């Protein structure tokens, strides 16, 4: 399995070469094109009810797609929905990452992806929803961001404050507390200023240079309101 980012920048794609029999898990809808040797399996992990509840509670896509080179070697082209960067990471078997649900693009078969329920307060205020993905194992992991992706490296006990809607992924060795961005909790709820996460190292935190929610609000002002 080999991954290569095409057209790096705002509108990248990723090309993944698969040997015969290899497969990857991809966000459903991410596939742009593929060799005729690749089969798409939309397996519902955890059965229909599992997939359904995941869909409901996470807003996550109904399933991951499995793209399998079942009829010989081939390649697939994948692209995220939003404009922004793609990064390819190589998981070493010990590092574990938590990924907000829109940040996952694809992962090798040896990479394990599980939905993890957040604490209710983190779910309500963290901005990543009630579920995030816990990704571990060994092999290729491909993330995508809205805007450019930026890596923050934290030494043990080093702290950094991140606006929660800019979070993409973070190491499981970090810990964080949610704090209010404005001067009071009520102000935070009403001003739309949102919440920030105070991360504490060691580990890495990947952030995106654009905030999807704010961008949505900005776009909305140009959409004529129907009567």
């Amino acid at each position, binding site marked *: 399995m080999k991954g290569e980012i095409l057209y790096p920048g705002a509108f990248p794609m990723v090309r993944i070469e698969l040997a015969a029999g290899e497969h990857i898990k991809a966000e459903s809808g991410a596939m742009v094109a593929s060799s005729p040797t690749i089969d798409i399996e939309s397996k519902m992990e955890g059965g229909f009810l599992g997939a359904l509840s995941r869909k409901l509670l996470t807003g996550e896509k109904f399933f991951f797609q499995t793209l399998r080179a079942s009829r010989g070697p081939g390649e697939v082209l994948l692209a995220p929905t939003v404009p922004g960067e793609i990064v390819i990471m190589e998981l070493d078997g010990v590092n574990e990452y938590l990924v907000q649900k829109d940040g996952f693009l694809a992962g090798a078969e040896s990479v394990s992806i599980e939905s993890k329920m957040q604490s209710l307060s983190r779910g309500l205020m963290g901005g990543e929803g009630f579920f995030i993905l816990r990704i571990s194992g060994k092999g290729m992991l491909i993330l995508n961001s809205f805007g450019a992706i930026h890596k923050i490296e934290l030494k043990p006990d080093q702290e950094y404050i991140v606006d929660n809607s800019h979070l993409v992924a973070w190491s499981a060795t970090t810990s964080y507390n949610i704090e209010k961005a404005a001067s009071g909790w009520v102000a935070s709820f009403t001003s739309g200023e949102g919440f920030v996460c105070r991360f504490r190292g*060691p580990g890495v935190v990947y952030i995106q240079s654009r905030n999807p929610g704010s961008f949505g609000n900005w776009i909305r002002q140009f959409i004529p309101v129907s009567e």
Partner: protein
Amino acid sequence: MSTEPNALCFGQEFPASGAPSLVYVEAHGLTVTFVSDTSGRRSEVASFSDLTVLAGGQDHDQLVLKWTGAQGERTIYLKNPDMIRAFRQAAPDHMADPLERAVERVRQVRHRRRMVWSAVGGVALAFMLGLWFGADLLVELAVARIPVEWEQKLGQSAYKDFLAQQEIMKEGLTVSAVDEMTHRLTAQIPDNPYKFEVTVVKSDVVNAFALPGGYIVVFTGLMKKAGNGEEVAGVMSHELNHVLQRHGLERIVKQLGLVAVVSIILGDQQGLVSLARQLGVELLTLKFSRAQETEADLTGLQLLYRAKIDPSGMISFFQRLSEKDEGRMEWFSTHPMSQGRAERLKAELVAMPKLAPVPFTFEWAKVRESLGVQPAPVP
């Protein structure tokens, strides 16, 4: 023993994501081997007495060991349960104290989280049970949160799918008659959020139906059965009111139950549309409830009245349908009969002030003729 790394080691010279390393717990302390080192496997040793023990990581369930060795400050993160157990067994008793406390805290955090989520699940379950036992209020609350655009999207896809397989009447006397009725009626709807689309379909089915979002289909079979334009207008007024009262959405929300309520409450209305599709909720065979039928009848009657269309047409059409003939089954399959429907409407009409109806501009006999009905006197 496996030679796969089982821990991450942090220190000044290591990458921020940590160096994959292999930790052995021995009688005196730890041996840490850095497996990614290309210059051969380098090891460092720390004795138990040098270590500070903490709990860390996202869920405070990783064992964190810190010490200052000859090579500088070191921090080890262990998450493998076997490793943590091995450390607890080998470490001197006093070291186990902070560890026990950390473990206890993790257990408490997990327990609390489980309690909170059980409570959330309980609330969701209560919602579901509420729906199941007909708490229509909840359905209405949920339906009120769905924007008209989603409703239109939902209705439109079913409407297009349906029409694609039908022979549509595009022009002629029938279509202009139906357009006139639609105009007269919709002009009397204040703050109408819907753009109604009415299509006449060539079919002997004696029926008409309304999809969520304002998509209405009238079959020519129903028009052939009608004795005058007011009867057809009565049916259309009934259908328009199914849309205005959002009856279709209420049925869908009821059928989807918990699923819909949870997704609407969490603000995922798009999810509802795709869910409705994925669950194969057949919009076209959606059967309204008796209460909804009565509501559509009564509000339909009022709409006819405001549009100055003789409301007795609606009543006579329902009477015609309740006579024994093959057409009634089709209508009642999607619009269940409520007892004494025509009588109820009659009583309602009597209570309203006298109306001076404005007739339609078309001649009903000619419309029927264009549909191929012999100009025989209508019984």
